[in-house]
């Protein structure tokens, strides 16, 4: 079974935000909103081990999709191929799903009045294109494809760079976005890339 996913090389990312700009443009995200993000973390001391790690993040398309569990309308669901989507015609923007994501990958769009998230540009991929962030990445640090197929290019990248998803012993909901190398992955986790999920009161946004 095909499972679209992504692999990101953290040590190649230059933090230029072309990915976020392209995503925002493609998906018409409203003011203050975007489906993906790049955060930056400084670590170490000047003169010793000072360093900078970027965290290009997006929906991890988790196999367990905990974010869909408490949707009151059924607007959000995992497709057969595992991509978690929100049907914009059905979503009422209650925001119930937002705290259910350990990565903070869901956000209410202030103008569209619905919850938005990354769908790996599925409709565009179906037309033979790449996700917008992959297509435009200046550092070529994003690799997209079928992570279930060991012969796919993305699987080769995952093997070659020993990429792993962002997860901990406590929080593991089967993410399908892989990050390398290990040292940078640890920086992301140490800086709170994952948070325990919690159910929300049903509130309209």
């Amino acid at each position, binding site marked *: 079974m095909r499972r679209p996913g992504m692999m990101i090389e953290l040590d190649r990312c230059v933090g*230029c935000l072309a990915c976020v*700009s*392209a995503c925002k*443009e493609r998906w018409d995200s409203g003011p203050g909103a975007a489906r993906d993000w790049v955060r930056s973390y400084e670590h170490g001391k000047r003169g010793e081990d000072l360093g900078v790690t970027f965290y290009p993040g997006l929906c991890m398309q988790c196999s367990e999709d905990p974010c869909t569990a408490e949707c009151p309308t059924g607007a959000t669901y995992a497709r057969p191929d595992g991509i978690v*989507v929100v049907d914009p*015609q059905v979503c009422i923007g209650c925001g119930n799903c937002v705290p259910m994501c350990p990565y903070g990958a869901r956000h209410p769009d202030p*103008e569209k009045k619905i919850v938005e998230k990354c769908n790996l540009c599925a409709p565009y991929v179906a037309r033979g294109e790449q996700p917008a962030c992959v*297509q*435009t990445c*200046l550092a070529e640090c994003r690799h997209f494809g079928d992570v279930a197929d060991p012969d796919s290019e993305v699987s080769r990248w995952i093997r070659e760079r020993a990429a792993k998803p962002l997860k901990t012993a406590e929080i593991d909901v089967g993410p399908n976005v892989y990050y390398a190398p290990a040292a940078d992955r640890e920086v992301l986790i140490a800086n709170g890339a994952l948070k325990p999920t919690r159910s929300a009161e049903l509130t309209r946004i």
Partner: protein
Amino acid sequence: MPDTPNLSRRGWLGGVAATAAAGATLTSSSEAQAFSLLRSPEAVVADRVVPSYCELCFWNCGLLAEVKGNRILSLRGHPDYPNAQGRLCGRGNAGAASVIDRDRLKYPMVRVGARGEGRFERVGWKTAYRTIAQGFQRIKAEHGAQALALLYHGRGGPLIRRMLVAFGSPNYAAPSYAQCKGSRDVAYKLTFGEKLTSPEPLDLDETRCMVLFGSHLGENAHNSQVQELVRARRRGASLVVLDPRMSTVASRADVWLPVRPGSDTAVLLAWIHLLLREKAWNAAFVDKHTVGFEKLERHVQPFTPEWAAAQAGVPAADILRAFDLMRKAMPAVLIHPGRHVTWYGEPDIQRGRAQAILTALLGAFWAPGGIFRPSSPTVKEFPGPDFPDLPKSVDEAAGKYPFAPEVTTTGIREATRTGKPYPVKGWFVHGTNLIQSMPNVGETIEAIRNLDMLVVCDVMPTEIVQWADVVLPEDTYLERYDDLQLGAGKKPYIGIRQPVVTSPHDTRPAWRIAKELSQELGVGDQFAFETFEEYLSARLEGSGVTLAELKKKGVHQLEPTQPAYLRPDEDFHWHTPTGKVELFSQQLADKGFSPLPTHTPIPEPPAGAFRLLYGRSPLHSFGRTQNNPILHDLDSTNVVWMHPAAASKLGLEHGVSVMVTNDKGDATGPVSLLVTERIAPECVYMVHGFGHRSKGLSRANGQGASDSDLVRDYALDPIGGTTGMRTQTVRVRAAQRQERR
């Protein structure tokens, strides 16, 4: 996903609020108009793809615009353009938002209030042209045509220049020389007889070692150069970065040398010293192509790594480590010449010379992995009558800047301010916000007050527009034809900018403004064409591509006109007085300047003060893009970087609101403080281009701090006339209650 009716993807008519998508009203906030906010944008399918090239910055990347009706659905990098390679940066991706920005200049205007007050009334184009023509004719009658000047930046500028020169003035200048690349161009021309092209001919495909001086690629999103640098790293090329700040690229380097500001030349001299001491220079290149080697050898004897380490405040071992990386990679070493290099005045020439000399000694000029020899496309000039004999430019008449290859903005400003060597009374400003792009805004305003007429042609109501007597609104780059892009590189190319959509306002392209205004000025015979297609077709004649083909493809690749690398047996006559690469510059000596590069330490800031450093955000170009709805949304303000030790001494905490001041009574802010180990304790840093004060820029106005407001103490280089702008020291204090937003 369910189908959505094909409603408006972009709120595409100026002033028209975003249209509602299926089942929702989407206009609750005042910013909604800037976003189209379709819930299912994928349901809107393009009816055409139009190739053109970008102008969010002047890398001018090729693009493909997907368009439906008069709406741009998306922009993406043109796959066949060498400067884009199928990708756009964060700015380029947001370009369509500049079309729908409600703050655009929408119609011609003339001033009704006092100068600088920003009060205008709408006029028709004919009235605007006649007002300008009357003003310019009067200036010409009273002071001569040389009393008119053009200050410009962008593709439309050269056609306006054609008008000005035909009218009889030699005074045209761009900040991209005197406030940016100038000192590098002078230094490389003095040494190799060639100035470098833009994009720089860096052989990143073949390099095995890259050395950057303050270049912060990545934060500075020079598209293809970033792509090629990352690819070179992937291939295993080593990377050395000199920067007092840990830039993104410095954080990725094998060796980061956090040099004291202004001490790069000391490190360069030490590397030259090492190369000579260890007899490791490229003898084949040096023997065949250079002059002055012995003098250089004597000159660099004292410049040991230990000496440089003391000057630069970095360990000698790291200088050696970087040297080893270069030596191992020889001759495939790329000494990056830099781009924005006007930091300290004359020392910038010395640094550029040292970079050029090191490149020569490594054998890395016109060599694989170093600087390659670019080929440029040649196309016809559009025919016109001969230009009149021109009087001396302001710089020539003043006998200034003997090695400047062009007139300087600074020289024009000085003549306007002082009337010497002769008065300048009229400015045409195209596409450059001089209030932010030139240092010492006080001098700029003093000059403007001396003008009889200031014409500003721009897309956005920037600060300089507020000072204009006549405002000419230009089409955005997505709405107009411009002159051809003649791309230099290993493979030269011709690119076209063409209308992707139609402007919803009463705006015009620069070519049309130049043509129509020329008619009013009596030099219309320079523009003997009806449509711009006619002009472009005439220029393309014999180039191997027709206008129709170019409009369809966007770019036409040509064969190189010369080999990218010097052949070992090639007897090249370099375009210098000796015909050789001049390690020792008799030209400089003759004019009383140091013929060999020297290091002059920059004075430390006074106690409690900081050196002001500035740089780029990957989402902004100078001060041009802060009001773009998407880019503003992603990056709305800058912050001031300060080292933790310095912050704690001042009792300032991370995130507090601060004001940055100089000793001339200027203050900028309020702006948030970023406390970070990445900046040297004696410096503060901010991204350039924020702190706008034009009320017409509704998003950008008042956001962040402006380094341009503070830089009064610039250092004028007497060799090439560029302005060093890292010479300003500043203080930082907590913002008072009434200053906070």
